[in-house]
């Protein structure tokens, strides 16, 4: 693969600094570097390893009201970002991809550093699963980065989405997170087959007898905070 993904690492950051220093004059040759920090604001919904995508206009990880891609379904039902990132890497508008290497527990934060050539229409997309759900996820769809200056940060509170690919049965067999250990991705589509806002979970404590979830797994919006800092 030609495009490189950078995890939290000092060496790529140093490389970025050097490259940026060499190519001040021409924006298209300038390399920009961002630190992306995700904070899990839920009570008991670990967030699967985060997938981060830098891209120009023309790429979307999802669209409200449109059927989820198979790769988004793999992330939203099973918490596995590999297919989504592979698909993004092959897209002509995508300039860089990265994945975190671990889930983010409730209350915790995790950071990724990612770099890309600078473009006026550069945007950031991000996706991560609420693992104690059937197919809930959160993230950002094409957040514009063009106005972010060096050392400037932007924090965005994000809502939970429903991939619409799996019914929200909340059963032990279908929820993959630590609350259940059930099945993750299954290509069958037994929900409305379009992405939308997540309706929340009912849980056994609110009368859904077949639910493996309890009151602690309920959530409201916002579900996470995403802070983007332009390092270089």
């Amino acid at each position, binding site marked *: 693969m030609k495009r490189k993904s950078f995890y939290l690492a000092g060496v790529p950051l140093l490389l970025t600094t050097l490259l940026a220093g060499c190519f001040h004059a021409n924006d298209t040759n300038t390399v920009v570097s961002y630190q992306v920090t995700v904070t899990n604001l839920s009570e008991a919904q670990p967030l699967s390893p985060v997938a981060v995508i830098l891209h120009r206009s023309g790429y979307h990880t999802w669209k409200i009201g449109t059927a989820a891609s198979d790769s988004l379904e793999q992330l939203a039902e099973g918490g596995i970002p590999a297919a989504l990132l592979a698909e993004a890497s092959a897209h002509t508008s995508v300039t860089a991809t990265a994945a975190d290497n671990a889930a983010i527990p409730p209350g915790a934060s995790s950071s990724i550093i990612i770099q890309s050539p600078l473009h006026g229409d550069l945007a950031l997309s991000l996706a991560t699963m609420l693992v104690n759900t059937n197919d809930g996820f959160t993230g950002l769809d094409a957040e514009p980065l063009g106005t972010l200056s060096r050392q400037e940060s932007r924090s965005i509170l994000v*809502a939970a989405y429903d991939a619409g690919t799996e019914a929200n049965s909340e059963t032990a067999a279908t929820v993959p997170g630590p609350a259940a250990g059930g099945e993750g991705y299954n290509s069958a589509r037994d929900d409305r087959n379009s992405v*939308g806002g997540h309706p929340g979970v009912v849980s056994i404590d609110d009368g859904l007898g077949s639910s493996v979830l309890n009151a602690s797994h309920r959530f409201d919006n916002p579900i996470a905070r995403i802070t983007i800092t332009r390092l270089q």
Partner: protein
Amino acid sequence: MQRLIRTLILTGSLAATPAMAQDLNITITNLTHATYFTPLLISAHPEGNHLFQLGVAATSNLQAMAEGGDISGLVTDTTTLGADNVENPAGGLLAPGNSTTFSLMTAIGNDHLSLTAMLLPTNDGFVGLDALKIPTSAGTYRYTLNSYDAGTEANDEIVNGGGTPGVPGIPADPGGIAGTGGTGVTATEANSVVHIHRGVIGDMDATSGISDLDSRVHRWLNPVAELVITVN
């Protein structure tokens, strides 16, 4: 013709004053899982006017919209104000996940934007925007909208066709998922002014139980809609 052109130029120079006429493109997206929007009313009106206000009792025309989706009274109210309205841009119901896009030309002084539509199936829930100051710089602005309870009808969650103001019950479930035979969640409405909607309870029983709504399907979390305004 000459006179007409001169008139247009004159109008153009007037438009340079702070309270200017504006050319807007607006997109509204239903973010819910299974809740429909009845015909939307979008109104650009002078400052100090409202379709609804938090903590204030609903007008009878707001009640008619919130309980039965009838915007005709609110249209009359806003027309009297000289507002610039768009009525029913989706041509009927706006289904979950769907969007409607339209243009709105606002006259000088109509610099605040309000909108309403009933949430179906609910007793008197609606999506709303109360007197947003319309941005004046060219660009694209994104907002999210919450669900409100008109406070005019008990949230019994019984689908019985009751859409006339003052008549208990929910007019219909356009998605066709609602059950029958519910005994009613409640017969009272403690908060009789416009407030944030507490959501629906529902149950898992299609033929009895307390509610005709399905707790796994008809739930929602705020925000229930996305509003994107492009100032041209």
